[in-house]
């Protein structure tokens, strides 16, 4: 990864690249960011992109905003990170605030309520699908993973504990169980 040389990129170019990814990425920003950075601008090879993404996935937080921070900082330091994140989030933040304002004003109208009920059910379905995609491979990996998934689901979804307690209980247990599965 040390091979990447991005220091020739200006803050304006960084801002515009992530703005483009954000506008093209309606419904999926990550594939759009890959297209812009790897296919379009050729600022990264596919391997370099995968490497950056692996790091972002290993850390907490939203993967795509982490990737923006990392890419911007590699190119231009802190001001580069500000440029990429502003490019990525600027337009969506403005639109979301406008949408939320419209919701506050018109959300109680009957047709809007009905559309929002359908939209809410669809959003729930999308989240169910995402949960299935991440949970089912875990459940096939053996009883240790099944136990951790079930425990975390029960504590966060049924008992509704504060997350800090859910993590305090489940992460040490998951580490102990994983220690038997991960080879030295």
């Amino acid at each position, binding site marked *: *990864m040390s091979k990447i040389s991005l220091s020739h990129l200006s803050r304006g170019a960084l801002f515009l690249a992530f703005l483009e990814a*954000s506008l093209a*990425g309606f*419904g999926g920003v990550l594939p759009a960011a890959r297209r812009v950075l790897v296919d379009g601008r050729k600022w990264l090879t596919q391997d370099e992109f995968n490497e950056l993404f692996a*790091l972002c996935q*290993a*850390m*907490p*937080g939203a993967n795509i*905003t*982490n990737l*923006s*921070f*990392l890419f911007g900082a590699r190119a231009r330091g802190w001001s580069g*990170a500000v440029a990429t994140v502003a490019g*990525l*989030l600027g*337009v*969506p*933040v403005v*639109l*979301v*605030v406008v*949408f*939320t304002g419209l*919701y506050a004003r018109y*959300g109680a109208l009957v047709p809007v309520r*009905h*559309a*929002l*009920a*359908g*939209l*809410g059910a*669809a*959003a*729930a*379905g999308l*989240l*169910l*699908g995402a*949960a*299935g*995609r*991440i*949970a089912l491979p875990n459940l096939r990996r053996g009883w240790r*993973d099944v136990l*951790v*998934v*079930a425990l975390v689901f029960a504590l*966060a*979804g049924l008992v*509704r504990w*504060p*997350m800090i307690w859910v*993590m305090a209980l489940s*992460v040490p247990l998951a*580490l102990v*169980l994983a220690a038997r599965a991960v080879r*030295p």
Partner: protein
Amino acid sequence: MSGVLVALGLLFGRLSLLAVGGTNAVVPEILRATLAHGWATRGQFVQLFAISNAAPGPNVMISTVLGAHVAGWPGALVATVAMVLPSGVLVIWAGRAWETWRETRARRLLQAALLPVTAGLITAAAWLITCQAVTGALTALIAGLCAFGSYNGRVHPLVLLGAGALAGLALL
């Protein structure tokens, strides 16, 4: 007003560092905190979550929507910055050690341990949102079809959201 902004900043600043596997993993905690603060009802929360899905931008937009709902422009900005900044700083800092760190057993162990935790959290999020969003036969059908479509990954999420909203408008 400033008390609300501090509360938003502290909540999302904390969740930024707890969001293992992305923003959806902290949706149960965002819901819990929202109810505890009285920022929205369960029903409103699901509607705000749906709006954040339908709007452009990544999943972190749930923090923007909630901030805007609670405290307008200042709330949206505080919540968004709090949600993205701590993990962003952490990832820049961790990136410096990544080369030597990525092949260590400790890192592989942590990743293997956190994967089922993330899966449990996102399943809990899906359960909590679905319980609230499904109020009858039609909403159950919409949620079921969208779950199937998104699990397969063949249908664009926006198509599913648009179809869900239209079905609600026409049939409810």
